[in-house]
């Protein structure tokens, strides 16, 4: 784990002290709300439907047990005893009171955490593959580069008032687990002539105008990464549309000007910037890399694990579903599901946070990760400890074996909390998960990613769900549109809209019809939903979704 330097500590303390006085000045009337709002947003503080919301950065999704325990303390002392993990590897507290926020930020500072640039038109929290440093298929741990980008982008004087927010994601494996193609900049680690570098993808994004990013540079060596990123952001900073917030994101800039023109402008800017870094970034990178050295892996016999795996079906199902291959054969990457059917996707109680902190410290080399799919990860667990980890998770209601299955649903907070939402997301996710849990069908259904957003801004990634659900307000009633065939990985795709939306009461039966159709259409169990969709296309699923209109020839996809 990266450890704060004295500079980092002082910087966060100073920012917190500034924000403390800004809150005081808002409360005593010295600052108007118009003056205060950009300041609170720079520090992650939103106003939502029922209360303020504090969004805390978990840079590249990495945290240790002490940090998780502090989040639990904050949840209990200043909130309602839980936190919500998000698709950008942040945690959100839904009920903080304004006079308490400075104390919360100080408590975060005590464990090397902050809420800086989790909102506002800045470069946001840098996200990364949640299996970074552990995945068997990884070229190199991308987190050192993510930390370098975090330090470069934090309080960057040129990039504090960008045309709009700006999101960067990194992945160090051929398998893209960081959704790099749906970010303003996606960095996908690649190897060329023995040298590791990055493919640079630009102009991806979801929201009201979903776009898959385009490759602007096939290979950038690490030594040139920061000046190249700075060139991209500075070109967009000048070209980006400040006249219309819906056209301000870089995806629109790339779309309007074309990738070739943007590339030429970036390369020209890069030529000017390249030498100005003078190697300082590379010296910093070398220091940062020491913080991401792999843990001292244990060597232990695996016989007990093999026996337990062979004899205990519940444990075996959990291992098969919730663990992934580790770079060290004796280890596993454990995904802790925060998607127990009927619960709120991504939520963890303070008690659950403490249990996960304890397990991470005891069995996981003190490392935890937040995934963009709103689950928690133990990246380094020796297989001989999996039995104890599973038992401890069972005791805390955290042992649901559903990673990648239909009940492992991404859902944004929706209109239960969010001021921007047009419909609720959480109850829809709960209903779908409960429905398929009762049927005990999800292991037979296999990999199926359902993603739900409560408005067009698409925090719930609905465009890139195998089944995407978008909640809208149709004449004062919640209405849910379905998209099919989206993909968040290296074969990224925006889903196709299936047709007219469904009411909250109709949506579970609609999803059930889709799944039934898939089970009938698939060649065999080895063909996952997305593969079947790609083979047969939208038509048979549309027939399943709209049996009445299809039969009478009155289909209306308006």
């Amino acid at each position: 784990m990266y450890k704060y330097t004295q500079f980092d500590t002082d910087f966060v303390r100073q920012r917190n002290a500034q924000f403390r006085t800004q809150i005081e000045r808002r409360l005593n009337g010295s600052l108007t709300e118009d003056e205060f709002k950009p300041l609170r947003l720079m520090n992650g503080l939103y106003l939502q439907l029922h209360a303020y919301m504090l969004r805390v950065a978990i840079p590249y999704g990495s945290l240790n047990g002490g940090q998780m325990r502090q989040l639990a303390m904050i949840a209990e002392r200043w909130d309602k005893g839980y936190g919500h993990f998000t698709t950008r590897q942040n945690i959100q507290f839904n009920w903080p009171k304004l006079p308490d926020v400075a104390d919360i930020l100080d408590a975060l500072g005590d464990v090397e955490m902050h809420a800086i640039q989790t909102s506002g038109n800045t470069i946001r929290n840098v996200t990364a593959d949640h299996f970074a440093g552990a995945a068997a298929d990884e070229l190199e741990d991308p987190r050192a580069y993510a930390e370098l980008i975090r330090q470069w982008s934090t309080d960057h004087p040129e990039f504090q008032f960008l045309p709009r927010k700006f999101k960067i994601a990194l992945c160090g494996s051929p398998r893209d687990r960081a959704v790099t193609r749906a970010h303003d900049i996606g960095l996908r680690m690649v190897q060329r002539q023995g040298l590791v570098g990055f493919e640079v993808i630009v102009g991806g994004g979801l929201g009201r105008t979903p776009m898959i990013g385009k490759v602007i540079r096939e290979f950038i060596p690490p030594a040139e990464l920061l000046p190249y990123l700075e060139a991209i952001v500075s070109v967009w900073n000048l070209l980006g549309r400040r006249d219309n917030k819906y056209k301000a994101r870089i995806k629109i800039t790339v779309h309007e000007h074309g990738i070739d023109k943007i590339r030429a402008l970036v390369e020209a800017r890069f030529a000017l910037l390249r030498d100005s870094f003078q190697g300082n970034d590379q010296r910093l990178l070398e220091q940062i890399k020491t913080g991401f050295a792999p843990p001292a892996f244990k060597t232990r016999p695996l016989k007990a694990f093999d026996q337990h795996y062979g004899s205990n079906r519940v444990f075996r199902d959990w291992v098969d579903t919730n663990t992934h291959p580790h770079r060290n054969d004796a280890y596993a990457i454990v995904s802790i599901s925060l998607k127990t059917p009927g619960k709120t996707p991504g939520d963890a109680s303070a008690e659950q946070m403490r249990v996960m902190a304890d397990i991470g410290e005891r069995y996981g080399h003190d490392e935890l990760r937040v995934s963009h799919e709103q689950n928690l990860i133990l990246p380094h667990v020796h297989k001989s400890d999996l039995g104890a980890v599973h038992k401890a998770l069972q005791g805390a209601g955290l042992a649901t074996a559903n990673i990648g299955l239909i009940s492992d649903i991404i859902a944004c907070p929706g209109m239960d909390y969010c001021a921007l939402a047009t419909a609720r997301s959480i109850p829809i996710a709960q209903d779908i998960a409960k429905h398929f849990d009762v049927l005990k069908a999800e292991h037979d259904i296999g990999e199926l990613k359902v993603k739900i957003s409560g408005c067009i801004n698409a925090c719930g990634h609905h465009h890139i769900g195998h089944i995407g659900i978008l909640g809208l307000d149709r004449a004062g009633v919640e209405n849910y549109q379905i998209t099919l065939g989206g993909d968040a990985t290296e074969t990224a795709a925006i889903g196709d809209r299936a047709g007219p939306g469904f009411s909250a009461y109709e949506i579970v039966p609609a999803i059930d019809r889709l799944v039934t159709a898939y089970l009938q259409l698939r060649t065999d169990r080895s063909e996952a939903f997305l593969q079947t969709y790609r083979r047969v296309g939208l038509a048979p699923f549309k027939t399943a979704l709209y049996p009445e209109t299809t039969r009478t020839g009155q289909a209306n996809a308006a």
Partner: protein
Amino acid sequence: MARPFIDKVVTANDLREGDVVYLTETNNWTRHLSEAEVLQDEATAKARLAAGSGDVLKIIGVYLADVTAAETGPEPRHFREEFRRTGPSNYFHGKQQRAENV
């Protein structure tokens, strides 16, 4: 022909706690929609919104919300306002929790 006016209330969030509040006839902010002043014409609504907006040391995010008058007081016309006066549907938090504790 002008559209018929839909009754309104002035609503906002409490500056310190963030809780949903409504403007009363006596220029106080109440946590209960049932105690809100119902505004029945455009001019009054505008004037009361302006009056409420000036209370910058108490509230944030002030706006007019559509309501329907009922015997028990104003009722929300839109589901967003129903959630605001009640709380989220996944936990018994927010106003619904406070109402039980009263």
